[in-house]
């Protein structure tokens, strides 16, 4: 049995037969032998046909807006004018249109937001080209068989044709946020994307697509599938408190009904989104109170505004930056706009008084001791007793020894910590494996944080993705983390996992995972240690 690794989308495995989709139309540019007029008579109907196809899809597909936009792009006048120039220079209709598209979409390629669109338009240009030669292009999927579609990538026009025969999708390119991944997730089709060794798959071969194991198994059967772990509670109480990450009132209600022990991360951003003007203290108070009143009993940690040029807010006047993740964001805004933090802390304090529920505060993007001190002083001046910082920038881990008596707790944001630790953009389609929460270097960073913080009497929580993975939550508890905070939908699963082990067992499982040198090994070692506990 041969295993091909990738990034799994969904968690249901499926047995099916490989159906390789290759680009069936790979023409070479050529010159015409007739008149410009004759070529135009081929080109115009071909463009119209593709435009009509896109408009038809726009009406029938749930993500119709993409197709509506594509219809507009393929019928672009500047594109046609440029193609006409190329026909005048000698190219035939299809070659000219394709060449014009390549040239015109070049300006879109520098920008990651638009480069996917450029690929889509290029795919349409190939379709136009095929039409000019009288060739019907399109993905023809046989009906009635269980198939796994295999290709480098799928254009939106292709994914729209996925029918009930499609039991799985495998691509060489793309990451968890690519078009095909999003579509498969929404349609419940298991997929593995970013499979480098895709060429090992042969047409008609029987395979198992196993997204929960981030892999494809050649000759695999359903009994080989990775089982999503389920945890049957053995203890009455969770080993460490399980809190919820909430962004609004609905989340807070969910965290309460899931039995959360409090809120480990209240993202205050929601009170500011879609606001042209800076919201007044009263407005903020109102928003915060709604969340506080709906939140579960226990700790309540509010994070001060985490905005930057990636999440711009008009009233903050943040300029465009080359690298928003490395720019003026989080607590760094305080340097240019101290009044903002003052307002927010005032509103949070009032919300605490009105609700009668204790509120703790923490600041995001703290990289230096001076920043931690500044925030702690501000927060304590506003009357907060329990004050903390996020651990996201690796630099602060090495300075925790200077924070005794300055802060009461730290909360590890594993998503940003991974991004900065591995120098890997959180949204990059090809870097998903670097951001795996089981990366041993990340576990080591968490362990160091725990040890350094505890030595100074500082409590440690984890509020990133890592805290939402039940098995990893056991590892975190074993590393000495005091609380985990999970997304409300995962609070119950994480709580159940933390009711299956005692402190000694968790420690052994954590040790097994943290001593590995690969993310996949760490995950497997934890499972093995758990099974053998």
């Amino acid at each position, binding site marked *: 049995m041969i295993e091909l690794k990738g990034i799994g989308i969904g968690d249901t495995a499926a047995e099916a037969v490989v159906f390789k989709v290759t680009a069936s139309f790979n023409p070479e540019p050529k010159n015409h032998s007739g008149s410009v007029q004759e070529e135009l008579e081929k080109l115009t109907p071909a463009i119209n046909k593709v435009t009509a196809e896109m408009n038809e899809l726009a009406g029938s597909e749930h993500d119709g807006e993409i197709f*509506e936009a594509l219809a507009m792009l393929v019928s672009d006048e500047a594109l046609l004018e440029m193609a006409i120039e190329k026909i005048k220079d000698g190219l035939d209709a299809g070659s000219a249109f394709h060449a014009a598209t390549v040239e015109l979409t070049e300006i879109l390629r520098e920008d990651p*937001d*638009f480069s996917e669109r450029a690929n889509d338009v290029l795919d349409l240009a190939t379709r136009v080209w095929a039409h000019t030669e009288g060739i019907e292009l399109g993905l023809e999927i046989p009906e009635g068989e269980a198939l796994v579609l295999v290709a480098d990538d799928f254009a939106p026009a292709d994914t729209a044709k996925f029918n009930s025969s499609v039991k799985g999708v495998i691509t060489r390119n793309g990451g968890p946020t690519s078009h095909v991944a999003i579509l498969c997730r929404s349609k419940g089709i298991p997929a593995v994307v970013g499979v480098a060794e895709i060429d090992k798959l042969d047409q008609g071969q029987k395979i198992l697509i196993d997204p929960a194991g981030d892999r494809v198994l050649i000759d695999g059967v359903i009994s080989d599938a990775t089982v999503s772990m389920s945890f049957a509670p053995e203890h009455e109480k969770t080993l460490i408190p399980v809190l919820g990450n909430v962004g609004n009132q609905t989340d807070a209600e969910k965290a309460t009904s899931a039995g959360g022990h409090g809120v480990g991360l209240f993202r205050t951003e929601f009170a500011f989104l879609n606001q042209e003007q800076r919201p007044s203290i009263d407005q903020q108070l109102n928003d915060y109170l709604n969340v506080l009143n709906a939140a579960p009993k226990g700790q309540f940690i509010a994070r001060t505004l985490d905005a930057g040029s990636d999440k711009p807010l008009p009233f903050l006047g943040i300029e465009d930056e080359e690298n928003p993740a490395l720019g003026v964001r989080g607590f760094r805004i305080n340097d240019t706009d101290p009044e903002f933090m003052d307002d927010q802390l005032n509103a949070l304090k009032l919300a605490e008084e009105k609700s009668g529920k204790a509120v703790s505060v923490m600041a995001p993007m703290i990289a230096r001791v001076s920043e931690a001190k500044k925030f702690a002083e501000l927060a304590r001046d506003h009357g907060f007793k329990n004050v903390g910082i996020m651990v996201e920038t690796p630099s602060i881990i090495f300075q925790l020894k200077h924070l005794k008596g300055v802060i009461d707790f730290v909360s590890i944001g594993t998503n940003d910590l991974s991004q900065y630790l591995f120098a890997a953009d959180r949204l990059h389609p090809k870097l998903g494996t670097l951001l795996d929460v089981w990366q041993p270097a990340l576990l080591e960073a968490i362990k160091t944080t725990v040890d350094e913080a505890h030595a100074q009497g500082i409590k440690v929580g984890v509020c990133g993705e890592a805290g939402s993975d039940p098995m990893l939550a056991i590892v975190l508890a074993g590393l000495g983390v005091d609380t985990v905070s999970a997304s409300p939908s995962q609070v119950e699963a994480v709580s159940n996992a933390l009711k299956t082990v005692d402190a000694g067992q968790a420690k052994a499982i954590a040790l097994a995972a943290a001593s590995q040198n690969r993310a996949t090994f760490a995950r497997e070692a934890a499972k093995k240690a758990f099974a053998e506990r």
Partner: protein
Amino acid sequence: MIERTIKVADPIGMHARPAGQIVKLAKENGVSILMGRDPENLIEAKSPILLLGKKFKNGEDLIFRIDAEESQANKLLDEIGEYLGN
């Protein structure tokens, strides 16, 4: 000729759909729509791809100039405002 400044209010900036919609609006109403950042250097909204190439970002103020009667121009400018997320 009517001029108005409209802010792009879309987290990913002016993307393909609004660009296409503005071009379509100009075509369907038989008017010329000039737009851009710099009043001295506006471009005619004829090509969605060229508009995308200008990379108008969220929060940017764009100037729109429409050569039409005041009531029609204002109606079209309102529509453009909606396309841009206002």
